[in-house]
């Protein structure tokens, strides 16, 4: 029952905000719906942690520990994003850059985006999951191009072009998996349900599965932003409005990664561990190296955050390659921690863009001196992202490296630590140029309204709490890890 509520509420809100012209109350309504989604997610997780998975609509929707965790991730970062988009929209309307009708389209699309992601996560059927992920691509294309500037148009074209091709690969992979499932012997009731595929995974034809998994990694890898297919990510995330890029970077990448995890479980059964691990390690390391190289001479702080996502997705791929329960638990914790930190950072960068008017790192001076609240949140956000305690990313990165070394991927862990050190240096120097220094004397210190800073500080405190207190999430993480671990 809860599963249906989780889907229905944002969908209804989407319809409502599409129909009615946009007002602040509608904005807060949308934020409330995502709050409901988060609460339902926690409820689902509480029920599913120890009990059997819940199914609805005759197996079309299936909620196990992993999908409940993802609902929580979507809910948490969605709440942050929709809370900020109310302010974003009112500022855009005030500045005359978009009309009320345009704003209602925006909030409708955001609700649709969240619904699609929830559907992808809750779908029991692998095909439906693919359809949902493709739907998110189409919806976000309009959101990326929302600002109607030349840059956002170019970004949305590249986004839709590269992602559609990638997703098509994933569809071909799904078809081949279906084909292999059909030819397992009993043709009758083979379908694209994840549970049935898992049950029969040991008998799937290895040749076809190897081709299928390769296409799936390449396909869903595009949506995750893994290396060879990552080029759309910096353009899309830097041109999209801040709340949208927070949602995309924080959650959409990890939803696609969730899909990859589901298929990895099947592939491990069919092909054994070697092939999937090799593929994921290759993709992970390539992403890390590309992210590290391109962060060095970055000049735009939104693109810097986007490349940071590529790095973190590379780390997730490495963690998933290890595959042990500890690795998957660390990957999941990293997903939540990264989502929160990246969401907060993108929202803050939106505020900085609004306040300073430019995304050039070089033109922003002494942010801490001139806007202490924004600078402080941006600074601590970067600290969280770079994997320093007390934030949860440190704990998850440490345990991922531990799991990788236990499984024999020590060399890959070493290369990842090297890339992270280079990235630490690069981001440190960019952060230094933006944050430190003394502003031109005489300029009064700008105050940031509480309505903006409260959720951001809340997000950072949540990320720190996740890194320190083990109580609520530990059991959920271990249960979710058991679902896909080796």
């Amino acid at each position, binding site marked *: 029952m809860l599963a249906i509520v989780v889907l229905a509420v944002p969908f209804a809100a989407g319809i409502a905000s599409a129909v009615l012209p946009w007002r602040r109350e509608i904005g807060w309504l949308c934020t409330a719906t995502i709050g409901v989604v988060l609460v339902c997610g926690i409820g689902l997780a509480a029920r599913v942690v120890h009990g059997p998975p819940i199914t609805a609509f005759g197996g079309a929707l299936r909620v196990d520990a992993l999908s409940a965790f993802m609902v929580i991730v979507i809910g948490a970062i969605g709440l942050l994003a929709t809370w900020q988009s109310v302010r974003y929209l009112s500022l855009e309307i005030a500045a005359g850059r978009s009309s009320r009708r345009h704003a209602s389209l925006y909030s409708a699309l955001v609700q649709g985006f969240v619904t699609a992601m929830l559907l992808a996560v809750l779908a029991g059927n692998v095909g439906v999951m693919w359809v949902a992920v493709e739907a998110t691509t189409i919806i976000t294309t309009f959101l990326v191009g929302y600002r*109607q500037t030349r840059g956002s148009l170019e970004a949305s074209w590249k986004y839709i072009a590269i992602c559609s091709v990638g997703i*098509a690969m994933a569809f071909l992979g799904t078809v081949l998996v279906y084909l292999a499932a059909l030819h397992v012997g009993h043709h009758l009731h083979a379908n694209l349900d994840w549970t049935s595929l898992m049950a029969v995974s040991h008998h799937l034809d290895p*040749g076809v599965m190897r081709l299928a998994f390769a296409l799936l990694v390449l396909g869903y890898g595009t949506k995750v932003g893994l290396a060879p297919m990552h080029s759309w990510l910096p353009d899309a995330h830097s041109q999209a409005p801040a709340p949208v890029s927070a949602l995309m970077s924080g959650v959409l990448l990890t939803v696609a990664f969730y899909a990859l995890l589901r298929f990895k479980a099947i592939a491990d059964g069919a092909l054994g561990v070697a092939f999937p691990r090799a593929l994921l390690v290759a993709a992970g390391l390539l992403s890390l190296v590309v992210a590290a190289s391109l962060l060095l001479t970055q000049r735009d702080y939104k693109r810097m955050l986007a490349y940071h996502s590529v790095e973190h997705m590379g780390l997730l791929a490495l963690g998933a390659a290890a595959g042990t329960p500890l690795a998957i638990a660390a990957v999941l914790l990293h997903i939540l921690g990264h989502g929160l930190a990246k969401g907060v950072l993108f929202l803050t960068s939106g505020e900085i863009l609004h306040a300073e008017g430019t995304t050039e790192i070089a033109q922003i001076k002494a942010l801490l001196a001139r806007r202490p609240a924004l600078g402080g949140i941006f600074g601590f956000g970067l600290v969280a992202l770079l994997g320093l305690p007390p934030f949860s990313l440190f704990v998850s990165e440490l345990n991922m490296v531990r799991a990788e070394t236990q499984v024999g991927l020590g060399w890959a862990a070493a290369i990842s630590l090297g890339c992270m050190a280079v990235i630490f240096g690069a981001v440190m120097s960019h952060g230094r140029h933006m944050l430190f220094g003394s502003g031109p004397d005489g300029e009064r210190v700008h105050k940031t309204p509480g309505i903006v800073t409260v959720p951001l500080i809340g997000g950072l405190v949540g990320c720190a709490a996740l890194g320190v207190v083990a109580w609520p999430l530990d059991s959920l993480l271990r249960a979710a890890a058991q679902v896909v671990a080796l």
Partner: protein
Amino acid sequence: MSGSAYASSLELASGVVLVCAVVTLWRRSLSAIVKALAVQGVALGVVALILGVGKHDGVLIAVACLVIAAKGVVIPVLLGRVVAGDPASREAAPIVNVPASLVGAGALTFLAYGATGSVVALIPTTAGRLIPLGFATMLIGYFAMAVRRKAVSQIVGLLLVDNGIALVAFLATAGVPLLVELGASLDVLLAVVVLRVLAAQMWSKFGVLDLDEMRELHD
């Protein structure tokens, strides 16, 4: 339909799909490319129809008609209107010249045959033997997207990829479950609509349809 006629008609239709893909690479003028796309859509629908009739699967026949309607008629018409609006409707200087791209297409077809060896081995029927054709169409479509400058030709490339995958889907598993099939084709349709809208905006707002000039976002 008798066995051999069924097989030969299936081969003919699949062959037409692949040939149309090669034609889009070969011809420079956009209107010709859109026509080839239409032909390919129809051929794909015919393949689905033959399979549906062969297996007496009513759902598949319905899907086939839907495919013919959407990919054969609606999408080419949409693209045609965009092409009409653009005076220089020729692929002036493609990044890779025509002979080189044809050689590339040949290589990709050869690679498709090699890669899908295990799949063909799994399905002994004639449909199984034709799967590499779908795979090749997909690769050629991808190649077309990567080398053509014009926005329309990129949309065509994407559609080639989708047609190739749909062909593989029909041949291998006689169509995926209905719900997924509907979702997939709806998504493809929406993707094309979005691309068309974007192309129109680019054309109206910035007067450029050559994607290589859109290089403002770089590091």
